[in-house]
């Protein structure tokens, strides 16, 4: 059982660091593989926002539903989805999570109740309302967690969904990943009110701002929120403020922001921050972190090997799954 209590012991802190590093190093490998043309299409990397996915996932149960966006490698990895099968999906291979039909923006994993990568901004929110409604109607103890960027708050779906969630007291945790830019559009150029959590509060649900660069703060907020949601108190909203270190996608020349701004944010990034704290307070000793990194690099190497050894889906299977013969159980 997860609880609302957070144990900041050596093992847990190292686990948080490991999970964030897994995402950071995985994304670095993805960028490299994109340049080598192993991965194609749109590729949106999560660097800088790792604390949000990792912090939130600590508070969840395996039976909870997760709906994410097209920038969802981090959520999938932090949820425990197989790195090998994610990488194979990015290669477009049949061993991939979705047999090469989804790609980077559409990772799905039934075993972890990971309901996608949704690439329409705001399009995942109504789905989360539905999974929460379905769970509620069937008397389950599950909650639905919906990740979305701050750009989504301008879509009608945001308002329609928050209203329904609050009206029907649905077990939904809304996680707004506010990274200050919806593609190239800066927050203050897009929003009449840049305090996004205030909009959520207007629908009558608890709404908090969290430092999305502080994994411990995110985990604490998530545990508080999940306890309330699972306790039948209705939806909860977390605005996690962070920053995207890399370009929006691999095609983005980043003409809309200064390099100096990016560097400033990188200096206070979630990984350097936790790492420095662990070292300064002597929670980690010797080469513990270096060993951690080596283990992660080995895991990534194995994932790349798995993807490289994979096979393209047979073209004869192209139309398979357009409709299904039965509902998968």
């Amino acid at each position: 059982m997860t609880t609302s209590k957070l144990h900041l012991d050596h093992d847990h802190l190292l686990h948080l660091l490991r999970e964030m590093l897994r995402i950071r190093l995985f994304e670095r490998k993805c960028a490299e593989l994109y340049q080598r043309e192993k991965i194609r299409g749109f590729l949106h990397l999560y660097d800088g926002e790792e604390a949000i996915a990792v912090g939130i996932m600590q508070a969840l149960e395996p039976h909870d539903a997760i709906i994410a966006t097209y920038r969802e490698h981090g959520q999938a990895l932090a949820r425990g989805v197989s790195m090998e099968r994610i990488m194979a999906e990015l290669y477009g291979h049949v061993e991939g999570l979705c047999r090469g039909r989804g790609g980077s923006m559409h990772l799905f994993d039934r075993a972890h109740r990971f309901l996608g990568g949704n690439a329409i901004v705001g399009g995942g929110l109504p789905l989360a309302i539905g999974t929460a409604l379905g769970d509620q109607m069937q008397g389950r103890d599950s909650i639905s967690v919906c990740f979305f960027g701050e750009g989504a708050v301008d879509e009608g779906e945001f308002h329609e969904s928050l209203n329904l969630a609050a009206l029907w007291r649905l077990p939904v945790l809304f996680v707004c990943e506010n990274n200050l830019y919806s593609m190239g559009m800066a927050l203050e150029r897009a929003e009449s009110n840049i305090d996004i959590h205030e909009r959520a509060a207007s629908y009558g649900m608890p709404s908090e701002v969290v430092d999305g660069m502080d994994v411990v703060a995110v985990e604490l907020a998530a545990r508080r929120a999940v306890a309330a949601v699972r306790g039948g108190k209705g939806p909860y909203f977390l605005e996690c403020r962070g920053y995207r270190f890399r370009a929006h996608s691999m095609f983005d020349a980043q003409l809309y922001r200064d390099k100096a701004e990016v560097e400033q944010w990188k200096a206070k990034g979630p990984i350097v921050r936790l790492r420095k704290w662990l070292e300064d307070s002597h929670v980690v000793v010797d080469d513990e972190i270096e060993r951690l990194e080596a283990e992660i690099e080995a895991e990534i190497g194995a994932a790349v090997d798995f993807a490289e050894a994979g096979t393209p889906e047979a073209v004869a299977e192209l139309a398979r799954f357009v409709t299904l013969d039965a509902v998968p159980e």
Partner: protein
Amino acid sequence: MAETLTYREACRAAIREAILADPRVFLMGEDVGRYGGCYAVTKGLIDELGEARIRDTPLSESAFVGAGIGAALAGMRPIVEVMTVNFSLLALDQIVNNAATLAHMSGGQFAVPLVIRMATGAGKQLAAQHSHSLEGWYAHVPGLRVLAPATVEDARYMLAAALADPNPVLIFEHVMLYNASGELDPAVDAVDIGQAKIRRAGRDVTLVTYGGSLPKTLVAAEQLAAEGIEAEVIDLRVLRPLDLPTLAGSVARTHRCVIVDEGWKTGSLSAEIAASLVETVFYELDAPIARVCAQEVPIPYAAHLEQAALPQPATIAAAARGLVRPAS
């Protein structure tokens, strides 16, 4: 004894039966509960079945259609009612980008066993934002099954078959059919949702239609019969996937075909049917395929203009006559 009831009563009986039969089934939509449904289809159901399963929603088509998809992903069997097909455009993203794609995009991991019902069509002087026939747009999309019940029997039994389908199914109920009444054959308690049906046999020309145009087409067929032209009337019933074998088989017998569709002609379902017939039975045709569709205008309010915009028995009969007895 054959039971006589209206199309509206048949829709209501189908919903009631589905909800009583399966705890996973519920209905949600705008004013389906206390109001009793925009077209009174669900009148009284909330009293019997309760607010949880006859669920009134706020005016938020995208959210409640998306919620239907999510609830289906969570193991429910939702029926979502959208007041009219015009309003469904506010939920087009959820229907086309989510309901229709999730099974394939997830590599078969997730199904969306969802039914979306909506009213379609013109004839009640509701003008251009309540009267269009956009079902053909949905029939364009792989992953969806699109149904158009035109008879009381189909209104009564298509829903159960749609709910048993593991994939998303859209049901289009033509507004001019709700008051139509018909008999239910006591020997029938289910219908298929795969095949077109020959509603009237004939040897001279095939009239292909569906939904609200079926009664008009049957009237046209009677007029033609009085002139010695025997028209075969095919009710598509299923707009996607099209039952081409039944269509092609009929055209191979009659060698002539008129397609009647309340949708616009340009880029339409009627165009798809004509193209498919040309691809499959071109050499059986003794005349060009004709189409009787809505005029290319937004459906207007004034009764005479609205009627002028729609297929009518006279225009259908004229099109058929032109194929069978072309002016020399």
